[in-house]
């Protein structure tokens, strides 16, 4: 009897601190996001008024929000496509080809992932600087002056500049991830394919890709959530949403409204939409990329 009691006490002692912290600092704030989205709340004045779905109706007609929405979707699609293409390509090369200095490349490619987003914002501000930035001066060196741009000042271009920084940051991480799952594929598969005369490309499409597909699928789902987050962090540190709101993304708009403007209720309504959208998108992506899992 006392044995089960002490066992129960032990379990409770071990688990409860974690559960309390999780509840107070993760789940409670998340519930608050949903609850506050139904209130009109001007912040420090402390006059909370229940307004039902009014915040969401306002959002529907908020052109700034719609632009932030477009920017976010654009970034998710383009950054995902480019990052995954490169990451899979480089992972396949570094695992399956005998490349000199493969270890060196792996180490280098992973570096952006260990840098703070603030540092990355600083690096890319230096790269994109219009007068003596690295990118424009390289273009000048090859006398491609025509291609020189105001990388962060031109409303048409700035979103691509951001996308490039996000890709730069993400490639190494996903590459290392795929490298380990590709390395787990038995070499005999490739030997057999090679004996039957399958080209390297054919081997890649019919052995490597199907066998790591499930891994790609999982990472893609998390990639959506992580890009929504990282694009916010980068925008906040690098452009502040400018010039003229042209790089505003989901969460940066939410943060500006909730923290900068102190219109908490409205900001949280944005949060709710983004939250639902990211889950919805992740579910769709996970559904359409579904294939039968191949075992080996």
């Amino acid at each position, binding site marked *: 009897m006392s044995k089960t009691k002490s066992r129960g006490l032990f379990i409770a002692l071990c688990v409860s601190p*974690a559960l309390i912290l999780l509840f107070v*600092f993760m789940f409670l704030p998340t519930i608050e996001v949903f609850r506050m989205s139904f209130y009109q709340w001007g912040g420090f004045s402390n006059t909370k008024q229940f307004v039902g779905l009014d915040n969401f109706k306002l959002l529907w007609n908020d052109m700034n929000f719609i632009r932030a929405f477009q920017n976010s979707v654009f970034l998710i699609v383009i950054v995902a496509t480019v990052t995954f293409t490169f990451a899979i390509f480089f992972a396949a090369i570094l695992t399956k080809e005998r490349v000199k200095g493969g270890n060196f490349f792996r180490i280098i490619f992973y570096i952006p992932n*260990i840098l703070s987003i603030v540092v990355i914002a600083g690096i890319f501000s230096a790269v994109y600087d219009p007068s003596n930035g690295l990118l424009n001066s390289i273009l000048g060196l090859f006398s491609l002056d025509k291609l020189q741009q105001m990388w962060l000042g031109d409303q048409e271009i700035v979103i691509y500049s951001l996308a490039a920084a996000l890709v730069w940051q993400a490639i190494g991480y996903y590459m290392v991830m795929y490298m380990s799952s590709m390395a787990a594929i038995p070499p005999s598969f490739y030997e057999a394919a090679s004996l039957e005369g399958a080209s390297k490309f054919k081997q890649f499409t019919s052995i490597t890709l199907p066998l790591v597909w499930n891994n790609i699928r999982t990472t893609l789902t998390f990639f959506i959530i992580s890009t929504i987050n990282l694009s916010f962090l980068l925008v906040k540190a690098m452009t502040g949403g400018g010039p003229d709101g042209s790089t505003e993304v989901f969460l940066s708009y939410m943060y500006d409204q909730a923290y900068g403007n102190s219109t908490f209720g409205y900001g949280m309504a944005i949060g709710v939409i983004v939250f639902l959208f990211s889950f919805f998108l992740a579910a769709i992506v996970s559904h359409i990329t579904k294939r039968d899992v191949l075992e080996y």
Partner: protein
Amino acid sequence: MKKSNRLSTDTLIKLFIYVALITLAISIIVPVAWVFLASIKQNKEFYGSPWSLPEGIHFQNFIEAFREAQMGEYLFNSIMVTALALIILLVVALPAAYVLSRFNFNGNRLLNSIVKAGLFINVSYVAVPIFLMLLDWDTSLNTIFGQEFLLNNRFMLALIYASTALPFTIYLLSSYFKTLPSDFEEAASIDGAGYYRTMFSVMFPMAAPSIVIVILFNFLLFWNEYILALTLMPAKNQTLPVGLLNLMAAERAAVNYGPLYAGMVIVMLPTLILYILVQKRLTEGMTVGGVKG
């Protein structure tokens, strides 16, 4: 004839592969190295070509960053917050992960799925609600004690960092504990060790490799984090990344680039050194978790 043709396509492919690899490597090495070089340049050198090497080692930038931009203070805050957060995280996550992965009890599955659900909660969503919550508590504390101490508090920030890292850490540690055979606990039990002894002296030491990975990952996470620090420390005790943001705004307005790049070096040097020392463990350990926040 056929054979030599085949050979040349192979060489072309090899060439293409190396060009691709080297291009990406350069695009990473050059900007990072450039920041290091820029951090020892004098201000007037920034008006020439960005590719000129520094004329001398202008260490003044670092002194300026430490003295005038208070990077020293930010550095101290970052070290305090990161260390505290890591300690809290390990103290809380280790027992929880051990029990959740190796004990059968009512509600175990429910608790495991609660922890998994936490993986989907993003820090960026909850930053503002946490701020409001602390503000609210601070107001109540102010009426009772006449003092507010939850915002701008290093310990609170560390506690919140630890909480946000819990789902991933418990998930990672649990998956390691699950791989251990139950013989160890049985042997410990026969030798008369209680639950606590078994946990502290048998199970935790065995988990050392994954504890190292947890520390590495979360060190990078906490050291680099800035949105919670920016939101929850509006007045003082700011950490390095937030300090760097302030520095970026101030130096750009004053067109004084040297200390700005010195500040960037101060932020990234610890992570780079750590990475070079343990890169193998880090990139191998990553595959254990497989999830990014």
